[in-house]
């Protein structure tokens, strides 16, 4: 999946496009609101789908080598979060959908129908 496809699937808006926006492939998605659990991820370059609007989301995502974050539930991010994503060159997409809907739409795009 490309970021453009991610954007479309989650009806999202890009708050920050990383330098790899055009070339990045998303192969693995993690939906999680507990950052301590995200840290147990073993895959590289995941797309993190979360409703937690805190700065720690960006830091955690960076630690695990995520390629981007989708912030769901239509929550407006703190300016500090957008700044941090910019600093870390981490794509940040905002989605009005809930976690469940954003996840299954991404799932269908990435994995097809069950």
């Amino acid at each position, binding site marked *: 999946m490309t970021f453009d496809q991610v954007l479309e699937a989650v009806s999202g808006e890009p708050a920050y496009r990383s330098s790899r926006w055009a070339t990045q492939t998303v192969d693995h*998605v*993690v*939906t*999680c*609101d*507990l950052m301590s*659990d995200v840290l147990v991820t073993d895959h590289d370059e995941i797309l993190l*789908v979360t*409703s*937690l609007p805190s700065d720690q989301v960006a830091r955690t995502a960076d630690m695990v080598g995520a390629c981007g974050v989708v912030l769901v*539930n239509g929550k407006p991010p703190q300016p500090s979060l957008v700044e941090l994503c910019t600093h870390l060159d981490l794509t940040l997409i905002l989605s009005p959908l*809930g*976690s*469940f*809907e954003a*996840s*299954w*739409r*991404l*799932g*269908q795009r990435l*994995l*097809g*129908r*069950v």
Partner: protein
Amino acid sequence: MTIADLEHRLGCTPLVPYVEATLAGAYTSDMLSDVMAHAPEDSVLITLQGHKNTVACASLAGVKAIVLAGQREAPDDMLAAATAEGIAVFASSMRQFELSWRVAALLGLGVPPRF
């Protein structure tokens, strides 16, 4: 879809005996305050939070079943509370993303992919 589908079609492990019922929707969240505020009635909750408070929030929201993602067990007090509230609890080795995708399919959501 029904609660039994969670066991028979998704392979989730029931942690308490459940009463079969229809599920109208689903909600995925690990933040209980969010569940309490937004989870729809007659839905299945997909979450990491396997403890007694989850049952309390689920009950307030009218959630009928809880699937604990990436887990095999739940504490006894959670299961006792769930039984008392008539809420089904399942464990699954799948994580929130995959569970959401599969439950959506069971609910008949989404359109066929374009060719």
